[in-house]
């Protein structure tokens, strides 16, 4: 299985490799096609956020393999001005008439865990995780094979 992958984000075009890496790992981890699509969409939104608001950053995409569940972790980092009001940033999209609930709030809704760490002048790190539960049958099969898929 793929280890951590880092995708630099410097322009709109970098959304494609970011999505591709996330989707490929999602497939390896056994996520459904629907969940793989949602993960790719969430990656698009956080990467777009970097492009639009900061100009450059990077995405780290990596698996988490637990006994009872597999996770896909995306860490989006930038060295921009930071988000002064995280709460408002996560609610933006619904606060005004023109909001659609996309961007960071949209990405948050598609993932299972979502955290933002941001300090004024020191950049922003968005960490989001999507989990897939592993049922007993899958775990037993894995034991018989002797290693994770």
């Amino acid at each position: 299985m793929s280890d951590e992958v880092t995708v630099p984000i410097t322009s709109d075009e970098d959304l494609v490799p970011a999505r591709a890496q996330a989707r490929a790992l999602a497939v390896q981890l056994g996520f459904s096609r629907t969940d793989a699509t949602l993960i790719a969409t969430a990656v698009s939104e956080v990467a777009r956020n970097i492009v639009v608001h900061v100009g450059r950053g990077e995405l780290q995409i990596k698996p988490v393999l637990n006994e009872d569940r597999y996770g896909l972790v995306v860490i989006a980092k930038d060295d921009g001005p930071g988000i002064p009001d995280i709460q408002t940033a996560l609610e933006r999209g619904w606060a005004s008439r023109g909001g659609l609930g996309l961007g960071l709030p949209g990405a948050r809704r598609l993932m299972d865990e979502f955290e933002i760490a941001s300090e004024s002048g020191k950049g922003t790190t968005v960490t989001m995780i999507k989990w897939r539960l592993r049922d007993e049958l899958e775990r037993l099969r894995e034991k018989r094979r002797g290693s994770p898929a």
Partner: protein
Amino acid sequence: MSSTAARAFGRAYATAFSAYLAEPDETALRTAYELGREALRKELSLLDLSTAHHEALLAETRHAADHEDAEHMTRLAADFLAESLSAYEMARRGFEEVADAAADERRRAALVRSLSSLLTDASLALHGQESLEEMVRLVAEQACELSAAASCLVTTHALAGRRAISVAVHAGEEDRNAAPDARALSRTHPLIRAASGLARLTAEEVRTDPALGALRSPDRPPGGWLGVRLTALDGSELGFLQLLAEPGANFTELDAALVVQLAQMTSAALERATHYVR
């Protein structure tokens, strides 16, 4: 979106879909996602988007080499459609969040309205210490209900010849066992006074501030804390209302606003009750 715009969208969708069938890669899927995002922004109906997809698929399968080719196109089409709909999925989940929040606000507003009329009636019918304590207990219960708190403590000073009151209400047995007693919580009164009547701390602040030992339990992690002063119209202090959140949880701005409103109603009721006694 106008029918002209919907038709233009249909053409763009068909072009992108055709390109995807020729080269089913992430670039083409990203295009689908952007089309859906743009459609949402331009307020295209989901029905129009699904029609655009259906028309595009139909147009392509008409030129399929054979049955297998048509089936292959149809299978690929599912991923393209999913991408184009993903923006709508984000919006749908956002709508659910807003609807849940609105329902919660309506519920709380109904609770506050009901409590307001109850307190108004109760404060005029209080006949003694016991009924005053009952009213204070009702306030503590409603404060817990409104803010989903683990515990609520309401304390009043000795008013108009009546004894001071201290009533604690807890959401569950664990909350009761973990909650600090009234004496410990009285050490937070200077904090509340210094904060002009409303003080709010996060779970992290309660956990790490050495001065807030009174709010911590040795048995479980702390939650957030809210403290409000009860005051008469002339500004004199009548008592305090304090809330403790579940472990790790914090009180929101909305919680604080509702509790302030509750405190104001309680203060008015207490003042009416004591004025009536006089």
